[in-house]
Each structure stands twice: as C-alpha cells, then as structure tokens.
C-alpha cells in the first residue's frame, strides 16, 4: 500500500526523503560488493522481477486476493543491499510512471517498504539461520519468519511516522491496533508465499539464493528413476 501525497506533512516528508536518500546511497556503495560491475543489468532484472511478481495474485478466497510486497523475498534472494536498491527503484518507477504513491511521499514509501522491510527482514533471517542447523529447511523457515516480522514492522514504522507528521489526530492505540493488526494478517500471507518461493528456488538453483551462501553443503549425487523419483518429489 503506497502512501499518497498529503498524508504525511511537508517537513516529515522532507525528513524521510533524507533518510531514504542516505539509505539508497549506502546501498549503492555496498551493492557493488554483492554484484560488482554487473550491478546495472542484474539489479535491473531483479527489480523487474519484483515489479512483475507484485502483479501475481494470490487468491485468499471469496473473490479477494493479495499480492507479494517482496521486501524480505528480495533480501533473502539477492542480499539486503541489492534488495534496498531494487525496492527503491520499483517504488520510484511506480510513483513516476504509474502515479502509484505520492511524489512527496516517495521518501516515506522508500523508507518503509524499501528500507525497513528489507533491514528487519534480513536481520530476522540472519538470526534464524544462525540459530538453526544449516539446511535448506532452515533457510526457508528463516525467509518465512523474516517476512512474517517485516510486514508488521513496516506498519509499526508507518504508525511512528504518522504520529510525527500525520495530518489528522487519530488516537495512537486505535491506529496501532488497526494498522499492526491488519498487517499481521498480511504478514502471514507474505510469509507463507516468501517461504514457499525461497524453498522452490533452493530446490532448483540453491546457488542463486544469497541468504543460503556458505550454508548448504553439497550432498552426494543421487540418481532417482521411475516410481522412486515420483515418490520422493
């Protein structure tokens, strides 16, 4: 959900723009280490992936459906710095090319959806992976928990922003209850999809999952055929 213009007052919008600019500048510097001179083509294609995967509808039932936000998914798949860059590029493009999300709210949107979700998601992921035995399963569980926490965390950060620079006086408790409560539900959906997506990438190209680097040991080559292969899959 993108914040439109007029939702957050001008001084707070400028402040979040400064935060977003600093975050993106740091990410640009650090992403060079994740991607080197491949940055433009690889980050560009990953951003195109995120943009498109947000259009993939996951039916919830009763005719409604939701879609991925993708912050934690990107952090686990390509690393936090590249993820911040890709999410920021997606948000800038949605704002300028599709009028989705206010121009003056761009700083807030990048801070919340580009930086908070990625940073919180990756921190949770790293903690989980460190605590659990190194296996494909714990990477998937880490991705699940990362998404589960990151969505309500972004909602909580939004409530904080709104308290500072919101344009209407809503009692803090009811805003927290509405925003965080609702986003806990969204976070569950995001977590299931993120976990499933990461584990399906792990099954075919574990080398592409940034968060699984150095964790997965190569197992012995196993030949499966006929019924046993079907039974295992």
């Amino acid at each position, binding site marked *: *959900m993108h914040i*439109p*213009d*007029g*939702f957050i*007052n*001008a001084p707070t919008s400028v402040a979040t723009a400064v935060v977003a600019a600093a975050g*993106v500048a740091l990410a*640009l510097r650090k992403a060079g280490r994740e991607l080197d*001179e491949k*940055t*433009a*083509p*690889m*980050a*560009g*294609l*990953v*951003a*195109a*992936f995120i*943009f*498109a995967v947000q*259009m*993939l*509808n*996951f*039916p*919830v039932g009763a005719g409604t*459906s*939701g*879609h*991925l936000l993708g912050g934690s998914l990107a952090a686990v798949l390509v690393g936090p710095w590249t993820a911040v*860059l890709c999410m*920021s*590029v*997606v948000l*800038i*493009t949605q*704002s*300028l*090319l*599709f*009028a989705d999300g*206010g*121009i*003056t709210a761009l700083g807030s949107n990048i801070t919340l959806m580009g930086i908070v979700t990625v940073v919180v998601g990756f921190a949770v992921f790293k903690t989980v992976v460190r605590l659990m035995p190194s296996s494909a399963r714990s990477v998937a569980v880490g991705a699940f928990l990362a998404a589960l926490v990151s969505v309500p965390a972004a909602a909580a950060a939004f409530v904080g922003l709104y308290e500072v620079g919101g*344009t*209407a*006086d*809503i*009692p803090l408790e009811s805003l927290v209850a509405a925003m965080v409560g609702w986003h806990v539900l969204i976070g569950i959906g995001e977590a299931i*999809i993120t976990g*499933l*997506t990461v*584990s399906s*990438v792990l099954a*075919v*190209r574990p080398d*592409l999952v940034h968060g699984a680097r150095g964790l997965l040991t190569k197992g012995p080559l196993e030949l499966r055929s006929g019924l046993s292969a079907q039974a295992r899959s």
Partner: protein
Amino acid sequence: MGAGHGHRLHYHGHSVVHRMPAQCKIVALVLFVLAVVATPRTQYWAYAVDALVLGVAVNVSRVPPAYLGKRMLVEVPFVVFALVLPFVAVGERTELLGVTVSQQGLEAAGSLLAKATLGVVAALLLAATTEPRDIIAGLEGKLPRQLVQIMAMMVRYLDVTSDQLRRMRIARESRGFVARNPRHWPVLAQGAGAFFVRSYERGERVHLAMLSRGYTGQLPGLRTDIARPRDWAVALMVPLSASVTAASAWLIS
C-alpha cells in the same frame, strides 16, 4: 493493493506538454506537489486554484480528462481511509448530515482528498505525456547515476518479464489449473520461484551480451533532448503559481 501496476499510461500526442523535455516536467511536478502538500489544510480556495492551474496544464496537453479519470483508481484505498477519518479522529465534535463526527478529522479528510487527488492527477499527466524512457533519461543528473541505470534496465525489461509471467499463467491454465484459494499457493509460489530463476538467468545473459559489446560498467548517457531556458520558464509556471497560492494561503490563515 490487489491491483497490478502493469497498466500503460502513455497517451500519444504532440502538444506543448508532450514535447517539453522530461527533466523540466519532472522538476515542475515535484515542486508543484511539494507546494500543494505545504498548503495549510483549511484553505480550500487554495486547492481550487491549484486544481485550476493543473486543469489548464491538462487542457494544453490535450489528454482527455476521462483518460486520466479512469487511471485515478490507484487512489481508491485512500479515499476509503479519508472517509473513515472523521469517525476515528479525536478533537471537537461537529454535526454533518445528522451524524456527529470529529471536526479535525473532517478537515484532515478534506485536505487529504484534495492533496492526494492533485498529486495523482499531476503524476498521471507526467506519465501520460512522457514516454517511460524519457522520464528515466530526465532523471539523469537528478538521481545517482547508477540508480538511473538500474531503472533504465528495469523498465527496458519490464515488458519482457511481465510477459513471461503472463505466459506462465496461461501455461498453468491450459493444464486446467486455476488458483482459487490459499491451498493453491504452493503452485503459485513455485511459479514465482521459477520466475525468479528465469529473471536472474536473463540478467546474466544480458550482462554477458553487454560485455561482448564492450560494456565496462558504465552505460552511455540516456538524455536526448536539451532543455532550453524557455522550456524551464514554461514548465516552472505551474509550480510557481502553486507556491504563490500556498504562500498567500499561509499569510491569510
């Protein structure tokens, strides 16, 4: 929200607004929206002046208002929020159509609707009168170079990747699979995973193709049109009038 972002917004035309260099339009848009957001919230006449200025710009661009109107749907979730505001906000109570609502919430809802609508229409006008590649070229020099290059690559391949996603959906449906409820999510997530692998591998191929054509980590400049002082003068008239409006609204209030 549930809707996708893949709709095309560009409306082909040759008006003054269409021909204006993208960088002028982007700067004008950012300044205009900033001025609108900085307007004190109960000065409703100021929004009317801003709407009038924007209306003139839309008229000059010859983009049909209905074309922009249809695309204002992105605003809908926040219209709902604005409608709820008077009931949940605190502060003095007031009567509206026989219902007691928060005075402050009502004012906030009004200004939120006005500001968000002006912002959406202004952004739509940029998107409708400017080709995506020109918008990105117009960002050169305004945003970090590498960020603009990532954006350029993304927009260049956006149609390719979203078409791939569409083909994957058609393939699923032609095998008789239509996702209806959360039990079908594993299939969709597997598709998303496969889609990531394909996008990433496409990135690797694109990178190798670029290397074979002499890519060294720097893309050539994207900008094609040069902004003349006259273009700037015309473009900046819009944010200038909005700023004057906002400033006088502050003086009056």
